[in-house]
């Protein structure tokens, strides 16, 4: 029997369609179909200037827009040869880690909801709301901030930022304990997740799977450790690993990862240096907003940068980060003009979902839901 799952199905987290060939309740073959949310981001970016293309990145993985901004800005900075000052780097780390926790909380709530544990959703969204409030107070937007800019940040953080983040960091480990009391030893949760849809280490490497899914299969690869960016080498944190690569391991890895993110935020906040947030590169980086409102020259420079942008030197650059889903990379090719000649996005979810047939063939159809949830896909990023 063939069953079409999706594209309108609440458990596919967007518009994913999977053609499932079944023998009774067992999946014999699975073919994912993607592209329902294709907007042509890579093509659109080629007619936008480097500054303008930043707004497109927010809309890839819309659960962690700041991480996407960061990856794109790193690629641009590699291309231009910019070095962001320490304060800017630390603030980027705090924002990216907050965003990772927010994305993991969204995943945990919806994943548990898919499997049938409704309460977790209300718990995780309470904390996620608090993070969104922090992001709103810093950037002015809740979902698509476009806040991390080429060469630094749009502006420095407000005074209340430190207090808000501190109270979150202090409170959060207790909250994770709360989620664990609901799920980790819950017999129904364990029956639905332990030894369900395992992915072997070899398959995970072959399919280019990254992020928590890869680490649940036991491969110690995290871009933050392997290729440190934005001063991650300054912080002390661990990379949680799984052994079996099943749905439970992916859950466990993400929960431990949230605790580690909390540690990173704590360290970055305590050691937050003073000084400028933006690289000293007037040709590339826009002047601070206060100057724009007072100084005629700054206003002209801001206008010219936003309108014409800058001409990037010829060359190629790759910038990658560990986003909440895995390795998110941007490969830029510049022909010397003010627009990217090629704007390649390496989306983690695209390659992670490619390994889905490997996980679910031979398992029960009800486990397909658990497997999709455990990969944590975002179709905005898969379809681009």
């Amino acid at each position, binding site marked *: 029997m063939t069953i079409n799952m999706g594209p309108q199905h609440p458990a596919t987290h967007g518009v994913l369609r999977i053609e499932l060939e079944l023998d009774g309740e067992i999946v014999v073959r699975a073919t994912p179909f*993607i*592209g329902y949310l*294709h907007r*042509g981001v*890579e*093509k*659109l970016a*080629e*007619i936008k200037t480097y500054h303008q293309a930043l707004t497109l990145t927010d809309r890839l993985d819309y659960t962690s827009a700041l991480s996407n901004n960061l990856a794109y800005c*790193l690629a641009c*900075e*590699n*291309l231009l*040869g910019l*070095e962001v000052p320490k304060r800017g780097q630390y603030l980027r780390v705090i924002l990216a880690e907050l965003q990772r926790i927010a994305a993991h909380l969204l995943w945990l709530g919806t994943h548990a909801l898919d499997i049938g544990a409704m309460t977790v959703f209300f718990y995780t969204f309470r904390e996620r709301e608090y993070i969104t409030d922090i992001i709103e107070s810093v950037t002015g937007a809740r979902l698509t901030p476009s806040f991390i800019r080429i060469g630094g940040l749009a502006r420095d953080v407000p005074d209340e930022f430190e207090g808000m983040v501190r109270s979150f960091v202090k409170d959060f480990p207790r909250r994770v304990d709360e989620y664990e009391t609901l799920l980790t030893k819950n017999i129904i949760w364990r029956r639905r997740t332990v030894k369900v849809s395992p992915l072997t280490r070899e*398959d995970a*490497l*072959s*399919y*280019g799977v990254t992020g928590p899914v890869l680490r649940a299969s036991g*491969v*110690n*690869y995290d871009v933050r450790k*392997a*290729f*440190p*960016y934005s001063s991650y080498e300054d912080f002390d944190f661990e990379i949680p690993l799984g052994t079996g690569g099943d749905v439970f391991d992916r859950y466990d890895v993400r929960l431990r990862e949230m605790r580690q993110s909390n540690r990173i935020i704590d360290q970055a906040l305590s050691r937050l240096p003073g000084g400028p947030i933006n690289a000293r590169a007037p040709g590339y980086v826009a002047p601070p907003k206060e100057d724009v409102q007072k100084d005629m020259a700054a206003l002209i420079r801001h206008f010219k940068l936003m309108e014409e942008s800058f001409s990037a*030197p*010829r*060359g*190629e*650059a*790759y*910038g*990658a980060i560990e986003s909440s889903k895995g*390795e998110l*990379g941007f*490969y830029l*090719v*510049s022909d010397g003009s003010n627009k990217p*000649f*090629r704007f*390649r996005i*390496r989306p983690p979810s*695209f*390659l992670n979902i*490619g*390994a889905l047939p*490997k996980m679910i063939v031979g398992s029960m159809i009800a486990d397909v839901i658990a497997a999709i949830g455990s990969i944590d896909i975002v179709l905005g990023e898969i*379809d*681009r």
Partner: protein
Amino acid sequence: MTLAGITISDKAVKRLESQFAGFVTVEQAGNQTNAIVDKAKLRDALLFLKTEKDLAYTMLTDLFVVDYHPRDPRFEVVYLLTSWEMKDRVAMKVRIGDGERLPTVSDLWGAADWLEREAYDMFGVRFDNHPDLRRILMVEDFDGHPLRKDFPTEGLGFGKPIKIELEEEQR
């Protein structure tokens, strides 16, 4: 100049150059060093990078195409490999013209299956022996390959009036 963020090193490029002398050219693209490999040695070179013990580029991080229309050969296919053990990356390229085919690497990396399908969908680059070379993001009956430089951003037939035939008129 060395930047902390640049993770693509020239270590593998040098090894490739000595191993496949005459088939590899080194190209400096801004702050990054790439290897350009002859099409005939593409699979050998990738296999070498993957299996050599001290290189161990076991992950195919990305595979994508850059269109340099109207230059000839028009396409550059970039293979971005990562060695998570050695903590190193390499960007290897192959140049092909319009209509030229490449051997598939989907038997070396499962990831190449979908990435090659995307390259075919967006640029029309075809891969020999690929198990299932269909469009992946665009609809099956889509006309053209949208990421080619000669494909208009607003789409084909933009601005032309759409002819609507009412059911009554058809009869």
